[in-house]
């Protein structure tokens, strides 16, 4: 087995152990805890009164435009990492290229701010 696959297996095993920790704890707790279900107990909590309407009420996700902005900048972050490692080898050319790239993105952010994307009142 090559080191390449060992990397992935290590990560997968650690994630699995994290989930396993929860499973084992819940299993151990099942041996110790009481179980007296009742209709009132399994009601959704709403400060003590009977819940009004369904649990999945319509919610205005106010930040969906932020999410779009985030997507753009996150892709940019993916580009920046390989550039950052190789910067010393590539030198001035890479630096100027990246600064042009960043300035374009910043201009986009300024435009979004000026358009009022970051305002919550509407």
């Amino acid at each position, binding site marked *: 087995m090559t080191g390449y696959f060992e990397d992935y297996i290590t990560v997968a095993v650690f994630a699995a152990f994290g*989930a396993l920790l929860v499973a084992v704890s819940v299993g151990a707790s099942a041996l110790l805890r009481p179980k007296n279900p009742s209709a009132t107990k399994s009601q959704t909590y709403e400060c003590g009164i009977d819940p009004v309407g369904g649990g999945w009420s319509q919610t205005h996700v106010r930040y969906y435009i932020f999410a779009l902005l985030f997507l753009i900048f996150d892709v940019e972050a993916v580009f920046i990492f390989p550039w950052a490692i190789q910067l010393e080898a590539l030198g001035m050319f890479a630096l100027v290229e990246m600064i042009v790239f960043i300035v374009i993105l910043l201009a986009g952010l300024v435009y979004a701010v000026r358009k009022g994307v970051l305002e919550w009142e509407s």
Partner: protein
Amino acid sequence: MSALFDNFWALLGLKAVVAILVILNVALVIIFAELKISAHMQSRVGPYFAGGRYGWAQPLADGLKFIQKEDLVPRDADRPVFKLAPMVVLAGTVATFVIIPFSPTLVVRDLDLGVFYALAAGSVATIGVLMAGWSSANKYSLMGGLRAAAQLIAYELPLVLAVVGVVIHAGTLSMSGIVEAQAEPFFHLGQTAIHLPYIFQGQIIGFAIFFIAMLAELNRTPFDMPIAESELVMGYLTEYSGIRFTMFFLGEYAGMFAMSAIASSLFLGGYYFPGLDSGTFGPIVLMAKVGLLVFVMIWIRWTFPRLREDQLQSFAWRWLVPLSLVNLAVTATFKVVF
């Protein structure tokens, strides 16, 4: 014994078990520190009776109590997702520990992707939080989950961009590589080599951005809107009880440990301290730095009031993202020109 260490699977299993034990113990210590330091900051005594002196066994006693509590799942809840949510949170948090170097040799696996992987694995926990918020079928939980997602969207970028400054300096993504690069002498003063961690090599703004974004990522005060008790009861945790609640709680403190260790390795020199042998004292040095950062986090909790959700968004987008981009450009210019 050596046959055991030569077998990849046996060694991996051993590493995972040891890592889980270390995470659990450090999380308990951090919980106790939080109880005690919070108490003293408010002129209280804090836990006092459990375990004899200073109430050191309080987190253990809490855990024992929680494990005996009835496990309630609301009738309307989306049961599979509800039960899966704590697993996703813990899986993401435990997976982060793969790359944290405790000494030059004491690291689970020094991945090439290093920091990049750490940031990716660290944000998996937010998916678990969003799952918990959605599956509870509770209005408070849903709001809490959505707020957690909003925080991730706003603060993931400053977090990632602040790291790029360090990557430019070190020229590698590997965590051990970054710590080793800080162990190199920064300059020579006559005969003496001066060693400086990246925070003193011009990355102090990067560290400040990283630390603020880290608080938001961990849902720590002043960014604890997802569980704001004054408006959302307990946010995404409202419907969780007993052992499942404990698992979220544990995940939160394990996350504090992981992020502090990453911040120490990136900006504060990790396991390296001038004059101390990294091989022997590495883990102690790293834990001391983690302890320092955890103390600052607790200190901040009792110093700053909670932000409003739109204030959080505009703070991230108007200040932190442009500032981290400028920091990145300045760092790169210095690296290339000098």
